[in-house]
């Protein structure tokens, strides 16, 4: 009797199994794995877009892997080594060359030829940004640039007016920071403390130089004075109290956790697209302006992120369809609201301008401004860039903590930086 029962249950299960299999076959369900990094705002919006796509294409499901920037590349590297990369990967400009060069990414050209991915509303430079050695691997999701977000009320209280067009010099920057600190007790946050090489690169570009040389085999400058100067500016601010002590940055802070959001600072350096998340977290009006100017423009228009398709993906065409939807669909972009940078498609940009989300409008206006103050090319990011960034962070900390002088810090950076890039 007991045996009979077991058999009957097994039979029922078997029939169910067959039925399920059949249903599956008729709808051809596909699961696309997709990974990205970002802030909470980005996670929320991206998940909503995935939901929308799933509603329109019920057979496509998504398996998401998302988190903060730190740790993202570690995980991706392991997945790459295990030949287990997600189908669709968000990738940064600095990593594109490395991943494409090692054959980990699928070429996108066939999908563009078939019309699955369309670049027709984007400028040719956008398509070019996703190319490595003449082959197209990546679809740019938006453009951004370095920027300064500040609290206009704090500046007003101190009787300072900051021009929206950023007509301030590095000396103004220092003076304003000190004045506002005296008047309000609010500090000017230190720039990009998890990646302070950004501020160095900005300063170098203002002086007509680059952080890396054109072949990626060494630093692009030989005089340590530039790094010394930029270190001196911020050391001075830290000493006077107008900038927070570096120990505040010993632990990486998320955007939502920044001193600006907590109401302890009035100025924050960021990538322009991060402004959307920052303004949302700060819950008070913020303005965007250009960083202090120098002899030459120091900014560049940066392809903020790309979507790429991994070479081992089983559903490359489905992945391509989704990427096109993500970049060109107006409804999708009305959810995303330029959080990944100013959209590449002119049609999408137009549609978004109609929504007149004040924060989005601010970033759009800023990008127009930045475009007029940028160097024409995107600086190269060599494969060793991540180690240089870590070194830069170390040197900035050492100097701002007062362990070594700016001059010694600059020298040490030059020496060890060149060693790393030359591969020792």
């Amino acid at each position, binding site marked *: 009797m007991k045996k009979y029962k077991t058999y009957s249950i097994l039979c029922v299960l078997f029939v169910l199994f067959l039925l399920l299999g059949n249903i599956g076959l008729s709808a051809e369900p596909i699961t696309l794995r997709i990974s990205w990094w970002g802030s909470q705002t980005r996670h929320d919006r991206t998940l909503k877009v995935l939901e929308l796509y799933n509603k329109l294409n019920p057979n496509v499901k998504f398996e998401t892997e998302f988190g903060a920037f*730190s740790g993202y*590349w*570690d995980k991706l*590297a*392991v997945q*790459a*080594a295990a030949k287990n990369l997600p189908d669709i990967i968000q990738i940064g400009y600095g990593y594109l060359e*490395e*991943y494409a060069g*090692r054959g*980990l990414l699928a070429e996108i050209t066939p999908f563009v030829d078939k019309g699955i991915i369309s670049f027709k509303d984007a400028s040719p430079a956008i398509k070019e940004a996703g190319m490595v050695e003449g082959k197209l691997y990546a679809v740019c999701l938006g453009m951004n640039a370095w920027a300064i977000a500040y609290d206009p009320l704090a500046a007003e209280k101190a009787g300072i007016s900051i021009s929206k067009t950023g007509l301030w010099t590095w000396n103004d920057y220092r003076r304003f920071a000190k004045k506002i600190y005296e008047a309000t007790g609010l500090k000017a946050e230190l720039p990009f403390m998890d990646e302070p090489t950004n501020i160095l690169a900005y300063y170098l570009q203002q002086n007509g130089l680059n952080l890396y040389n054109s072949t990626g085999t060494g630093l692009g400058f030989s005089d340590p004075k530039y790094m010394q100067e930029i270190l001196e500016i911020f050391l001075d601010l830290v000493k006077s109290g107008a900038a927070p*002590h*570096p*120990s*505040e*940055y*010993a*632990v*990486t802070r998320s955007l939502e956790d920044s001193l600006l959001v*907590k109401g302890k600072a009035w100025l924050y350096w960021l990538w322009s697209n991060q402004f959307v998340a920052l303004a949302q977290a700060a819950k008070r009006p913020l303005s965007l302006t250009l960083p202090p100017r120098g002899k030459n423009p120091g900014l560049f228009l940066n392809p903020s992120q790309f979507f790429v398709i991994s070479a081992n993906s089983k559903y490359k065409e489905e992945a391509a369809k989704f990427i096109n939807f993500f970049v060109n669909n107006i409804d999708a972009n009305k959810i995303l609201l330029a959080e990944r940078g100013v959209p590449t498609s002119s049609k999408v940009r137009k549609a978004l301008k109609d929504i007149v989300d004040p924060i989005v409008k601010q970033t759009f206006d800023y990008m127009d401004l930045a475009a007029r103050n940028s160097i024409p090319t995107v600086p190269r990011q060599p494969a060793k860039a*991540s*180690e240089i960034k*870590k070194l830069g962070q*170390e040197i900035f*900390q*050492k100097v701002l*903590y007062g*362990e070594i002088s700016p001059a010694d810090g600059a020298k040490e950076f030059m020496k060890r930086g060149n*060693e790393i890039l030359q591969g*020792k």
Partner: protein
Amino acid sequence: MTRKSQPKKSWLFLIINWEEKLMNEKYSFFKRVLNSENTSGYVFILPWILGFLIFTIIPILSTLFLSFTKYDLLTSPRFIGFENYIRMFTNDPKFIKSLKVTFFYVFVSVPLKLTFALMIALLLSYNSKLSPLYRAIYYIPSMMGGSVAIAVLWKRLFSSDGTINALLNLVSIHTDISWIGNPKTAIWTLIILAVWQFGSSMLIFLAGLKQIPVSYYEAASIDGANVFQRFFRITLPLLTPIIFFNLVMQLINGFMTFTQAFIITEGGPLNNTLFYALYLYQRGFQFFDMGYACAMAWFMLIIIAILTSLIFKSSNFWVYYESKEE
């Protein structure tokens, strides 16, 4: 059957053939093997053995191979001999720094933790109605201690606007230093975290304390020994095997500390909490320098092996086993 025709047979057939042969020729032998207790024992631990071989031994051996190569995870490894090992000592200040930091951490946190665990164990060894409850409560931290959640909590406790500073402000010590961000205090926040996880050592101590016969203490008190004399003359000597065990285990654990530094301090400030395991991880997964990371792992193995064997050697002088009484 000629020899030539044999290779054509499928392997399955050969096995069946072989089995039959066994059954016929040495039926009793085969049956004996199948039915013996050892066989069933091996079958039962087979999953573990397979797991051990596939997930432990093979990876360990491959790291040994990889430690002699330049391997960036994405392209295939290239053999470079002892270059990784040489670079560690000649051209990597961060490696030396991480060694120093790790040794400091281990040599401070392990004795502190053991002392603390022993003290709590002594307190809890007095029988009261509530002592089982206390035992459970004091054990909780060591169950959660290595977790990410506790690390995040620690980050909040010791940040510039964290709970510790708020408490200090309450007793009118006004400070807004970031305990984690200050190069002098950062490592101590991690040491406190380690000491806080005294639970498992405490339980082992407690078990050891229970084993000491009460009659020794009775005899000693009749002879007029006070509390301290009883502790240092009876408890401590009889507890040395337990201390020895705890010391070895905690030492090994200490050298492998990773999560705490990875989450709480990220190795900073100024690399003052750059633990060996953390630097190894950075090398391997952030700088794509897996060959070097493997070499570091093997060097750590050697350090732990040497230290452990030193402790074992020294145990002749200070560990007291009752059974060895002359």
